[in-house]
């Protein structure tokens, strides 16, 4: 699938609000990005220099929702370190410098027709997201709704109040499986059991996952059991987002003479396969 050209834009901040206990939601006006972004792509957001703390590096953020009709995109972030703490001070009506859409997104196995060797076109999909990792998969939930793909979405988080994406999934007609740490439902073994039960006999055509290494591993195991492709969205510290600074090479064990794939251009979405053995 041809990737859209990235642009930068002085995007007006239309909404900047608290979500749940730990997150903030930004709605940004950028017609080009809203119209061209593919599911699972991300933005680089520059924290304005006018704010007290000088933040030098833009912060990569998944495009949680695209609203091409309104010319807006949504981002949800957690307040973690210096960068996101400074971002909190951006007011509605101010402008944020954003660059995007960037990277390789999630892709459903082509619904138009498979090639003989490839996976079957997706009719059903299992998406698994945890924390802000939910944002990376929400574009695929949007796509699924548009393409008539049956989407089951595991939303994982510390507690009900901290689950991202329930309302979005409801709006998009996806089946939600909320799992949380406080009632133990997010525990890996419990979730694996539940998903194996749920999809017994009728596995999904594809699994998309983002947000925690152990979930990616579970997804890869399920994919191997079911014989379906698994795509995982990774994170890496980034500077350019365009593939030239080489800051984001994936930490995969390789030949010391060969660089790992760059998360910003070769990913953030990669095919997940279980290591042999």
């Amino acid at each position: 699938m041809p990737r859209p050209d990235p642009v930068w834009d002085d995007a007006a901040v239309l909404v900047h609000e608290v979500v749940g206990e730990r997150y903030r939601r930004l709605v940004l006006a950028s017609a080009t990005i809203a119209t061209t972004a593919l599911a699972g792509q991300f933005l680089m957001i520059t924290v304005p220099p006018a704010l007290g703390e000088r933040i030098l590096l833009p912060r990569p953020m998944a495009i949680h929702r695209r609203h091409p009709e309104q010319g807006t995109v949504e981002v949800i972030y957690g307040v973690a370190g210096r960068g996101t703490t400074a971002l909190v001070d951006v007011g509605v009506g101010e402008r944020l410098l954003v660059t995007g859409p960037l990277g390789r997104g999630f892709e459903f196995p082509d619904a138009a027709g498979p090639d003989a060797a490839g996976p079957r076109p997706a009719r059903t999909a299992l998406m698994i997201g945890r924390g802000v990792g939910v944002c990376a998969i929400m574009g695929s939930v949007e796509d699924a709704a548009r393409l008539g793909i049956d989407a089951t979405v595991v939303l994982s988080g510390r507690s009900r109040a901290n689950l991202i994406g329930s309302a979005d999934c409801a709006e998009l007609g996806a089946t939600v499986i909320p799992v949380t740490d406080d009632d133990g439902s997010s525990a890996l073994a419990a979730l694996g059991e539940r998903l194996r039960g749920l999809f017994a006999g009728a596995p999904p055509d594809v699994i998309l996952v983002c947000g925690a290494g152990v979930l990616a591993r579970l997804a890869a195991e399920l994919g191997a059991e079911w014989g379906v492709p698994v795509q995982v969205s990774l994170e890496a510290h980034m500077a350019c987002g365009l593939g030239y600074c080489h800051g984001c090479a994936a930490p995969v064990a390789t030949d010391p003479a060969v660089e790992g794939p760059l998360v910003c251009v070769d990913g953030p979405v990669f095919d997940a396969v279980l290591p042999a053995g």
Partner: protein
Amino acid sequence: MTIAPPMPPTDARRAFFDARRAFEAVNLSVRIGSLTLANPVMPASGCFGPALGRLIPVAELGAVVTKTVFGTPRGGNAAHRLTELRAGMVNSVGIPSRGAAGYLAAQHPLYLALGVPVIVSVGGHRPGEYAPVVRGLRGAGDAYELNVSCPNLDRHGTDIGSDPDAIGTVVQAVRRETDKPLIVKLPVLVSSIADCAQAAEAAGADAVCVANSIPALPLTADTRSPVLGNVIGGLSGPNIRPVVLRLVWLAARAVDIPVIACGGIETADDALDYFSVGARAVQVGTASFGRPFAMVEIIRALQERCEGAAAADIAELIELWRA
């Protein structure tokens, strides 16, 4: 599955592309050896790639500088390769490289297509490793920047560029391979920047670039373990500017060849600080990450400043302040 056809650039970016205008009465050109650049602003090595051509009008730059090319393929350092502290950004990319042949095949054509002079950055881990890389580049590039801020594996723990003798050895060897302009990019942590710059000049360099990032050790706040896979990384960004400003001042007094300043430049004012202490050109690194158009803004602002002060060039602009 494209959701809609690509749209034209939004206003902010398009307006920026459209804003280019000619400054007839202002001459920003600068000579580096036999090479003349239309203006003195270029990216710092490792902080630019042809991909930026999708975001900014690269043809407005004075030159482009490639990421450092080593002789043999290298994978670079383990993650994390970069982080940001209050003091600045710290990178330990470790200079992954596909080697000279890989550069020629995969990257040089993309650089050539940009339509501005291409300065190829060349690295090595022993003084003897530089000349073979330049030979391997087979004449590609308009000038070479010798990145001597690399640990010298022949002298454990010190950079090649902190040793005036090693600098001389590198430059002399490369000079035998090419007539093209040679720039020597010096490290910050040296006992005498003047000695290093003079060693480069004496051996036949056409310019020195002052300086590379400052080696630093970022720790995580919680467990005090190193943030970077390589433990050590290079500190860059605006906070290193006062330190590099002094080095540029000292280097410009020590040599006759041009000094190219590099360190924390974000705006035309920052560039003018360096010009005022003797720099003849500037490189922009970290600033491009947060503001990809920073270099183009600086060039335009320098032109406007000169025009506004009715100065024919930057030297005249600086004289006007002093008067």
